[in-house]
């Protein structure tokens, strides 16, 4: 483990003159697992995109196996033996799993059956339960992630970069993933692992590098770190206690029932599900992937439809509602903040201001077709300031923002609609600890203002630290409810699994 397989010296990348990374030195040794941690906007993604050939350095040097290299495309990086598994998946949704795996490696006489057989054998060797013939658009987030990982492994890369690989995996799938990483390490593959789940970084990594505001802060053996030291290095202050460490000692009393879901059915995902949500409280919804949480609340918000026959009832303020599209739900005061922000949350080529303005337009009806650029700009600036969205200006395109800032923009886009019921689906997925604290504060403020707030999360500490009451979902229905005062991780996980 002494030869650096990959090295960056004084690496600097600037966007419109603003440095995303600045004078960063980074060394990846042969056969090591190297965790890269930092707040959103710290420069982790930029650093790894440089390595993967997605962007090129403004100044500085990159060395692969001691030789200078400057990959300009992901293909060139792949030729150098560097593959990246992106945080937001980069699969072709209309193709099958097998076609995605072998995309770019097709033979002249491409035989689908042969591809399927090869893909099946390969996926089985990785212990991934994914059908090679399945169309990617029909897969859940976890399975898409598996295909991404499998594709990187398939390319026999000597460096694999994982950007938030475990964010959408269940605990069992995470275990498989860690076994896979250990297996890659044994085979001499070097792994760069970006994660906001610090426990995972501590568990799996040999060394950890912390970045802050685009600059290198510290690199050390993982054994010499603990959670508090990483967090302090990441944010320059001790956040570990304020984030998840504190247990609730009081809960907000319930106000009026805002939402009642009664015997809801939606295909095989939601099975006779019933629950209530009350004003002035945060209702946490925990469950493993496939527990039907997202689908239930998507039905509530009109994003998807319930069963045509005997689909159950959704009552808003005790009045039955049946939304076929989201617009009337938005007008009735329901905001659903998606778990998949890149696909469903915003328009990536539009500015922050326009994205937020679109949120406001969605609430209006019959106001004519006049769109005011000045109003959009003002709105964008107001919300960027209110939610501390860090960008050069409100005119910056959404795609250029970091994950945490994108999430805050998506939240702003919904809050501008002045909702009564706010549904957050995985609000801090792929978001750094600094932004997590800000988003949590925002969620708490909404409940304190008397709004009914729902937080769907697969991360137990998040559910426990935020919620006043916790609903546990399993196999398409709510199976248990706990007050935050009586809940424990063991109780919740037991209900979610058994």
């Amino acid at each position: 483990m002494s030869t650096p397989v990959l090295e960056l010296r004084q690496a600097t990348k600037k966007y419109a003159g603003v440095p995303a990374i600045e004078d960063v030195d980074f060394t990846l040794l042969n056969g090591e697992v190297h965790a890269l941690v930092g707040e959103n906007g710290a420069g982790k993604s930029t650093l790894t995109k440089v390595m993967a050939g997605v962007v090129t350095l403004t100044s500085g040097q990159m060395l692969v196996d001691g030789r200078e290299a400057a990959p300009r495309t992901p293909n060139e990086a792949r030729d150098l033996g560097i593959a990246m598994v992106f945080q937001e998946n980069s699969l072709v949704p209309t193709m099958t799993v097998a076609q995605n795996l072998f995309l770019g490696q097709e033979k002249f006489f491409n035989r689908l059956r042969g591809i399927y057989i090869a893909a099946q054998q390969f996926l089985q060797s990785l212990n991934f339960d994914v059908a090679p013939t399945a169309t990617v658009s029909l897969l859940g987030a976890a399975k898409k992630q598996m295909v991404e990982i499998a594709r990187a492994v398939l390319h026999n890369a000597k460096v694999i970069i994982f950007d938030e690989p475990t964010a959408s995996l269940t605990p069992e799938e995470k275990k498989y993933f860690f076994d896979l990483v250990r297996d890659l390490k044994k085979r001499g593959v070097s792994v760069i692992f970006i994660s906001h789940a610090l426990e995972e970084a501590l568990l799996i990594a040999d060394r950890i590098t912390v970045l802050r505001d685009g600059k290198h802060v510290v690199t050390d053996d993982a054994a010499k770190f603990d959670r508090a030291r990483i967090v302090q290095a990441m944010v320059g202050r001790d956040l570990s206690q304020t984030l998840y460490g504190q247990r609730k000692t009081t809960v907000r009393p319930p106000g009026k029932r805002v939402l009642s879901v009664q015997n809801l059915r939606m295909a095989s995902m939601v099975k006779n599900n019933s629950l209530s949500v009350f004003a002035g409280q945060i209702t946490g919804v925990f469950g493993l992937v496939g527990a039907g949480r997202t689908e239930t609340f998507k039905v509530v918000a009109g994003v998807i439809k319930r069963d045509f026959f005997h689909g159950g009832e959704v009552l808003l303020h005790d009045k039955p509602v049946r939304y076929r599209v989201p617009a009337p739900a938005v007008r009735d005061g329901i905001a659903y903040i998606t778990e998949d922000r890149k696909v469903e949350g915003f328009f990536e080529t539009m500015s922050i201001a326009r994205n937020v303005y679109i949120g406001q337009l969605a609430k209006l009806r019959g106001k004519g077709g006049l769109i005011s650029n000045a109003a959009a700009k003002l709105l964008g600036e107001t919300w960027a300031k209110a939610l501390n969205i860090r960008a050069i200006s409100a005119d910056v395109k959404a795609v250029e923002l970091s994950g945490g800032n994108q999430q805050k923009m998506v939240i702003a886009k919904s809050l501008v609609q002045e909702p009564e019921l706010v549904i957050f689906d995985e609000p801090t997925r792929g978001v750094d600890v600094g932004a997590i604290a800000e988003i949590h504060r925002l969620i708490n403020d909404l409940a304190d203002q008397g709004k009914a707030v729902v937080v769907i999360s697969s991360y137990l500490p998040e559910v426990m630290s935020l919620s006043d009451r916790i609903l546990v979902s399993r196999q398409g229905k709510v199976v248990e409810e706990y007050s935050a005062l009586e809940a424990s991780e063991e109780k919740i996980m037991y209900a979610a699994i058994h």
Partner: protein
Amino acid sequence: MIAALKDFTDRFFGRGEAAITVPPFDGALKPNQLLEAAAVVCELESPEDLASDGASVWIADGHRILRLEGGRPAEVAVLDAPITALAALPGGGFAVALDGRAVRIVGGAHDGRTWDAADGRPFNAINALSATPDGKLLATDGSQNRPYAQWSHDLMELGRSGRLIELMPADGGAREIATGLSYAFGACATADGVWVSESWRHRLVSFNGGKAGTTVLDRLPAYPSRLTPAAGGGYWLTAFIARTQLVEFILREPSYRKRMMAEIDPRHWVAPALGASTTFLEPMQGAHIKTMGILKPWAPPRSYGLVMRLTPQGLVRYSLHSRIDGQNHGVVAAVDCAGALFVLSKGRRRLLRLDVADIEGSLQA
């Protein structure tokens, strides 16, 4: 025409009024075992109602009025008909409903005053009485069509003939405050009018002068019954049975109900009950469900025990339950007295006692 078409499509697709759904027991209504674990004060013969003046607790048991003394019931009075409702009067004495067809004052300043009709219509199923701070009495007449004992007949007929009545002991007057209620069962004077339980519509309605009420608490997962003020503010609301999808389904099938009522013994109807029976003739006792590939015996629940503590605004603050596998079902009355809550389980013919401070302590733990 459009309404009729909508009714038809709703029935076809199982939507709107035809959606056979039941609100969940969650939030402040989350089930617990507090009622099931309550101390049993005594077993009774035919209990109907409770009353308290803040110092003592009285029980209506068949023809008798009992007073709780040192934890044991002692007979205070015997009347000439079964008592269906009881209220303690602020100036001393009681108001009692006799067989649901008359209300009489027993003791106190207006001893012997009797009412048997309001606005020209005779009482039929008086099931709750409550004294108001201004010296009047509130009475609920559950149904004009069925006597008190036949409440399940009224449910199966989707009865809407309940009344809320105001009685004036001072001059013997009586007037209807509201009519056409879907089984009125319990009323209480509050700061913003009179609240009444409308059982078959699973709600509490407030009346304040006008004939049309405003809904205080709607879409309960149970059938509400009597309502009494709670020490420290708010109210105790009892619910004598819980709603189930099976009964909701039956209530949307008029021909099935008609035939069931004509041909089957009421004890064996697919209908709610105050308590579980042991007869194998009970509906669907031989049913089963398949879970994880294993066939398991199962029967739909028919009875439940529930008491709700309401805030002065009518929100449920917390609740006490005897779940479907419990015993203390068919709860029809709850009163608090000197820091204790007394609950009448009519289904099990028991008087239960709980310490209010203990309840609140255990729910906060």
